[in-house]
């Protein structure tokens, strides 16, 4: 019963090495967080009209940011990156440089901002905040360092506004991806989303499905969870539902060039899901005849999973998971500054030697078309 006696990972202490597990080759970090510190951080990217709107109402910004990442929770900012006062890790480029870029020298990092605009129901405010976040990402991050790339965000409820925003900033050379929170108003394979995918394909962008978001109703099929940890681990069912819908609707057959990154969702559960989908494809293929390939083949061609959180089991079990999944499906991510207790050294030790460079950099380089 090694699992039960396994010592609890102690959260990393300040000053420990960058979270690349001692890997000395090239690193491309596919999930690094940029998180604006409330509406004031966006102030200069908002028009006078929206500043007045926000001031009059005492609006604090999207409520789903603190419910998705409670600021004081250890999972939101790891102990080793937590400051006693002042701006927190993730909120400013200078902190990222100190915490991650200088000690680890990653070749590229992909910045993801969970903007929470999905929790804004006022359609025009949602657009204003979205635009401000993208302009903030470009001005205060992308233009500061050539190693940075970013996911742009889109308003989550009005399809035409999503398309317009992609056309507004999607061709910026630093923008490589559009972020889609895993919780959403509708499953991402649905036909209403097609114009959004056509827009991002026009700009050569990746679809990045990431933890967080707001559903039209509870974020599970059985009502509202109670505890944060309960909801957090249970987010798995949303990733499963989204991927099932996306393959069932034939999204990748309609858009053969569409690439999708699955971020901050883990990956150890993916072999089991692929087995289940393949089995049902054999049994129910006549009900979804446009699914010409087994879902696992669609996964292999179009999807990549970030390594964080690793959610590691015992090393021998992780080795099995890697064999079943295929290491070519993984792209390294630190998920800075979040804390999952990830042990990247252990992950590297169970990866086949010839796959380590691919997981740490090369697969992401090709997937995101990074130089």
């Amino acid at each position, binding site marked *: 019963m090694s699992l039960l006696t396994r010592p609890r990972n102690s959260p990393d202490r300040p000053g420990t090495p960058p979270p690349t597990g001692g890997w000395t080759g090239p690193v491309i970090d596919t999930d690094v967080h940029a998180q604006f510190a409330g509406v004031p951080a966006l102030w200069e990217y908002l028009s006078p009209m929206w500043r007045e709107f926000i001031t009059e109402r005492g609006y604090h910004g999207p409520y789903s940011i603190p419910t998705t990442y409670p600021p004081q929770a250890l999972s939101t900012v790891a102990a080793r990156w937590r400051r006693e006062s002042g701006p927190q890790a993730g909120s400013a480029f200078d902190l990222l440089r100190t915490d991650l870029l200088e000690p680890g020298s990653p070749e590229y990092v992909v910045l993801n901002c969970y903007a929470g605009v999905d929790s804004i129901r006022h359609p025009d405010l949602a657009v204003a905040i979205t635009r401000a976040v993208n302009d903030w990402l470009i001005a205060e991050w992308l233009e500061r360092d050539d190693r940075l790339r970013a996911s742009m965000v889109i308003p989550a409820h009005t399809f035409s506004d999503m398309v317009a925003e992609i056309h507004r900033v999607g061709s910026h050379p630093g923008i490589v991806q559009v972020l889609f929170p895993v919780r959403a108003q509708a499953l991402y394979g649905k036909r209403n989303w097609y114009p959004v995918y056509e827009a991002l394909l026009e700009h050569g962008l990746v679809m990045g499905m990431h933890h967080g978001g707001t559903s039209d109703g*509870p974020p599970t099929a*059985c009502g509202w969870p109670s505890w944060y940890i309960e909801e957090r681990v249970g987010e798995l069912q949303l990733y499963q539902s989204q991927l099932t819908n996306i393959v069932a609707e034939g999204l990748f057959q309609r858009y053969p060039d569409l690439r999708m990154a699955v971020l901050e969702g883990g990956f150890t559960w993916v072999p089991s899901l692929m087995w289940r989908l393949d089995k049902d494809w054999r049994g129910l293929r006549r009900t979804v005849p446009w699914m010409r390939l087994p879902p696992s083949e669609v996964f292999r061609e179009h999807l990549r999973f970030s390594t964080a959180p690793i959610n590691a089991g015992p090393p021998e079990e992780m080795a099995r998971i890697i064999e079943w999944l295929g290491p070519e499906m993984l792209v390294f991510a630190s998920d800075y500054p979040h804390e999952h207790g990830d042990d990247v050294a252990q992950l590297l030790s169970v990866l086949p030697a010839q796959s380590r460079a691919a997981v740490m950099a090369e697969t992401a380089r090709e997937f995101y078309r990074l130089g």
Partner: protein
Amino acid sequence: MNPVAISLVDTDVHNISYTDALLPYLPQRWAERLRTFGVRTRAEADVTPALRPQAGRHDAVPPCGVAGGDPVFARRQHLDMFGVDIAILNNIPGQISHSGGNDPVVFSAALEAANNDWTMDQWFGSDPRWRGSVAIQYDNPAFAVAEIERCRALDDRWVQAVVGTRTERPFGHEKYWPLFEALTHYDMPLAFHPGGSGSGQLSGAGWPSYYFENHAGYQYPVVSQVSSMVFEGVFDRWPTLKVVVVEGGWSWVAPFVWRMESAMDVLGSEVSHLQRRPAEYLAEHFWFTTQPMEEPTRSEWFTGALDQFSRLGLVERLMFSSDYPHWDYDSPAEALPHDLPTDVRQSIMADTAAALYGFGRRAR
């Protein structure tokens, strides 16, 4: 005549009630309501239609026209053909559309009682091999507890209560605690089976489009249910509570346990009420059934998947199920890989279920 060991237990066979079958068991007022308004609770079959009526096998439709509607037909086609010693019935309408939602609770209560009376009368009454899961209005625990008490007073062949995987709240919520009190009182397991009371959506991000998604996704809400029961501390309050996940798969369990364990390492202080680790709750309180059997991409990976599951402490926690009369039925003769060791096979096909439910030896 010496009794012999039970060699085949089927932990998931469906009896499927229909209006004409239930009418004799309903009070006049509710019989009239059923005839006039029908059942208004949304059933998933109406949202994502299955590939066949009742998702039934083509050859499993008896003269009444409803697969799973005729106990003698089911006995001949399944129990007799394969020598099933004991089979547990999960009544589909009793667990889905009759369990409440867009109907008056008193009507749903009458429907559940009628379903259970029909099962006792027509199924238990026709063959000693049938056992049953009490069909309950699980989102109204007071009604559910009363129905469990009523059924247990009438027949001890009720061996557990069945709950749809999609409930109004995740099942560790305080709302459901009276149910755990009653189940542990009778030492009856709680069985989760795919389905729902028609209260919520089929996913946490809205409705899927196709039956393929509904069917492939049977395990997804179980993730929420397990997470809820673990982190709400249900198993500290009811240390003898047993949970059976029916038709929910099992190869996902190990990665999910690691996911919970990793989260505990970082966020455990939020749930300081817990007395144990998530992995311990899983190992002590959960059982799983086989159908639809896991089929890894390469058949040789099956052994590894089963080993991974067993190493969680879930040795002897897997129980054969056929899902008769559904289209994705697993035959007792074909469900398990043929190269599985005899003792493992025996454990899955009979011994684990016999131990869990207290099934004894049978007369020869």
